[in-house]
């Protein structure tokens, strides 16, 4: 999945202090857990939470359509998923009661919970879920994330009122993880029959809140679902949410957003910047929620399909020529921890290899000399056969926070000392995609969020180098390694958990050793909120916060 932030949002930094974060990262929805500082007192009913999002305003509130992170954030308030993750990061059933898979892995049976209704009165049943899946798989819906997640479903059938049987094209051990993502959340089938424009404006779900109105470019107004039924009674208090309403505002400017929080105009902001987080740590009135996203880590990919990175030695030299750690320390104020894995640290199957990525200019020099880049031109850059060792680095201003852009600039400065030129091109999203589609890049940083290690297949399988009709492809380092493909295919279909873990570790080791990527840190997902807001910290499987148990103290 791709996530889109607004252009001006390049000013938004985000970072994570991993140690403090893990406790909070995967809280069960609805579980009334205290956050780090401890919320004392009795919950109070009432009040409106003003949420300020730094992300682009979605063009559709239904996350089936397209499917990006901003949609997931807001949709988590009014839609629920079949599965979710608890505080330990364990997958648990939510709207689904249970699920089984046949021995050959080709038939998946899902039992749907009873007694739950959508906010338009429609009853949740197997037919409703089927209607959702059909909606996702219908090309007219133009789903991208959900469509990919359900890609292996061949056919489906509602066996009875609460049992749905899915036939798969090939075994898929990531399916339940996919079901936990808001992009495949379950909506009212009655509502789905409306036109797409209507459904985009006000999707109908089973969540603790419902969409009341949407004033474009201003706010989405959510009100409490008074009829809410918590699917898992152990997960929180009985009855409806404490908050009367949520005003979901879009404030693209990071500095403005933080100022609005300080001024009390809003109670919670996302995409908090590292310096603001650091300042908030010292401020008792503002609290911090760090919820790293699952799936891939934030990384720079090295395009192995063309010179000079078609030479593994040059890739390795590059990795040693840039000093990432010093930059992360100074730019992220301790809110982000260096990653050495292709996967997010919240993924249980993440595999790290720190020893491969040390800053070692001497070694970089040796490797480059050995690769034939021994001469230098007047500007001090290495040359080979008259060509400068120059790397094009398109950066999307809407997908990269300022601290990250500064990090790239600092990489640029340290690489220069080893005689490597990096040309950073700041581009708007369309132009940025244009550079990728025409293979006009040597380095690129693109986010990808998905629950589970299955994301590795999307990012590194050779199938993913084949562009979609739009030109899009996810394997941006353009790894085409048949042995890696086999590893990923097998890991994705095996029923043996131990084997799955082992195979994914091998696959990660392979891409790391091949220097196809330079891991940076987790995909940053920081929230700052007013201390008046109590019991914040429950999140969905994709680390989007939920507010069922949250209340506003006076």
């Amino acid at each position, binding site marked *: 999945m791709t996530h889109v932030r607004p252009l001006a949002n390049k000013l938004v930094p985000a970072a994570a202090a991993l140690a403090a974060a893990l406790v909070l990262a995967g809280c069960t929805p609805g579980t009334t857990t205290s956050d780090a500082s401890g919320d004392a007192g009795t919950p109070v009913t009432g009040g409106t939470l003003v949420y300020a999002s730094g992300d682009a305003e979605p063009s559709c509130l239904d996350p089936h359509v397209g499917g990006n992170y901003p949609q997931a954030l807001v949709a988590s308030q009014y839609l629920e998923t079949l599965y979710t993750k608890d505080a330990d990061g364990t997958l648990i059933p939510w709207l689904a009661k249970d699920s089984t898979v046949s021995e050959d892995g080709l038939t998946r049976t899902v039992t749907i919970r009873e007694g739950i209704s959508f906010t338009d009165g429609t009853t949740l049943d197997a037919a409703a879920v089927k209607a959702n899946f059909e909606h996702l798989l219908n090309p007219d819906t133009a789903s991208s994330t959900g469509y990919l997640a359900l890609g292996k479903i061949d056919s489906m059938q509602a066996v009875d009122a609460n049992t749905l049987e899915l036939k798969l094209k090939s075994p898929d051990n990531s399916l339940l993880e996919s079901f936990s993502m808001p992009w495949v959340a379950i909506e009212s089938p009655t509502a789905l029959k409306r036109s797409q424009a209507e459904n985009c404006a006000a999707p109908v779900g089973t969540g603790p809140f419902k969409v009341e109105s949407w004033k474009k470019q201003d706010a989405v107004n959510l009100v409490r679902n008074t009829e809410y039924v918590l699917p898992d009674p152990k997960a929180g208090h009985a009855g409806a949410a404490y908050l009367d309403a949520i005003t979901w505002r879009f404030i693209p400017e990071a500095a403005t*957003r933080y100022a609005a929080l300080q001024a009390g105009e809003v109670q919670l902001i996302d995409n908090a910047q590292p310096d603001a987080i650091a300042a908030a740590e010292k401020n008792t009135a503002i609290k911090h929620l760090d919820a790293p996203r699952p799936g891939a880590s934030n990384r720079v990919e090295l395009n192995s399909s063309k010179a000079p990175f078609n030479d593994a030695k040059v890739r390795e030299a590059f990795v040693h020529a840039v000093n990432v750690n010093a930059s992360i320390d100074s730019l992220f104020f301790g809110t982000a921890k260096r990653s050495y894995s292709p996967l997010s640290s919240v993924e249980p199957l993440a595999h790290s290899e720190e020893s491969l990525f040390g800053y070692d200019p001497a070694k970089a020099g040796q490797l480059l000399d050995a690769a034939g880049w021994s001469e230098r031109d007047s500007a001090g850059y290495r040359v080979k056969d008259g060509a400068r060792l120059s790397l094009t680095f398109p950066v999307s201003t809407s997908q990269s926070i300022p601290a990250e852009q500064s990090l790239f600039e600092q990489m640029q400065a340290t690489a220069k000392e080893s005689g490597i030129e990096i040309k950073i091109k700041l581009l708007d999203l369309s132009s940025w995609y244009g550079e990728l589609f025409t293979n006009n890049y040597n380095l690129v940083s693109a986010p990808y969020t998905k629950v589970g290690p299955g994301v590795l297949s999307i990012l590194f399988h050779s199938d993913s180098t084949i562009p979609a009709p739009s030109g899009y492809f996810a394997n941006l380092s353009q790894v085409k390694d048949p042995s890696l493909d086999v590893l990923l295919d097998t890991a994705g279909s095996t029923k043996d958990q131990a084997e799955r873990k082992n195979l994914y570790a091998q696959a990660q080791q392979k891409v790391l050793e091949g220097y196809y990527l330079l891991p940076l840190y987790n995909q940053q997902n920081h929230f700052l909120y007013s201390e008046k807001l109590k019991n914040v910290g429950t999140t969905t499987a994709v680390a989007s916060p939920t507010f069922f148990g949250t209340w506003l103290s006076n």
Partner: protein
Amino acid sequence: MSTSTATATPTRSPGFPWSTVRWLLGKLGGGIFVLWAVATAIFFGIRMIPGDPAEAIMGGPGSQASAEALAAARAQYGLDQPLYVQYFGQLWRLATGDMGTSYALKTPVAEVLGELIPPTLILAVLALLVAWAMALLLAVLSTRSGGLGTALGSGLEIVSAAVPHFWLASVLILVFSTMLGWLPPVSTNTPAGLVLPVITLALPLAGFLGQVMRDTMLEAQRSAFALSARARGESEVGVLLRHSLRHAALPAIALSGWAFGSLLSGAVVVESIFARPGLGRSLLAAVTSRDIPMVTGVALLSAAAYVVIMAGSELAERIADPRIGPS
């Protein structure tokens, strides 16, 4: 009087103002031409921008839309037809008042604009009024207080006019919201939320207007008719109110078309920073997401507004100043 009085300015005959009607018709024709030219320029200009409009419809290049979906979108929006068919179809739809459906918002452009015009209009009109008031105040104060005051006022105006919107907005938020906590940094439903955006837009404009108004005001203060008025026993305040202000208003009226353009451009920045819904912010979003119908809609709207404002300001000038004859 017996002799001929054929001086340069012909005496206007009372009765039906045919010349004004002719002038208005001319303006109308010119306005239609401008709208056509803007529509044409946007149509062809935006098609030269790299990127498939069908992708923009499907949610951007990262949408991984299927070939069928893209084809369907092309067919739905008529993008598979020859360019000239699209062009004339577009003109016909525009002429009949249909601005199409936004690619990104999937809502009729007219509807979106209808929602976005009021907030931008409120912002712009308030900013214009505040700018006028500030410019006037500066101009009056500096013309009334001698050489030193004039130098000071003029310096203040020049510096205000040189301040970038985005910088001013940042500094205002830092000082008045974060440090002093007096005003909200984002737009709210209360009037307080409008204060900072309006000041941000108004201050540089006031600098420009002030410079022009003070020059004219000084000229009027030193003119023969001001001397005549003083010789009649008129007080300095009377000269200011009855004569100088009128004259100072003329160039400010003439500049209103330009001021409108600058306000709209400023609104792009101000609406983004203060998180206000409005035309400026949507324009930026529409251009970056290649939302052709939205870009066309905003461009046509602002061109139409410009034409109307220019005609209005010319009319106001004609009414205020008989020296501007029918031309």
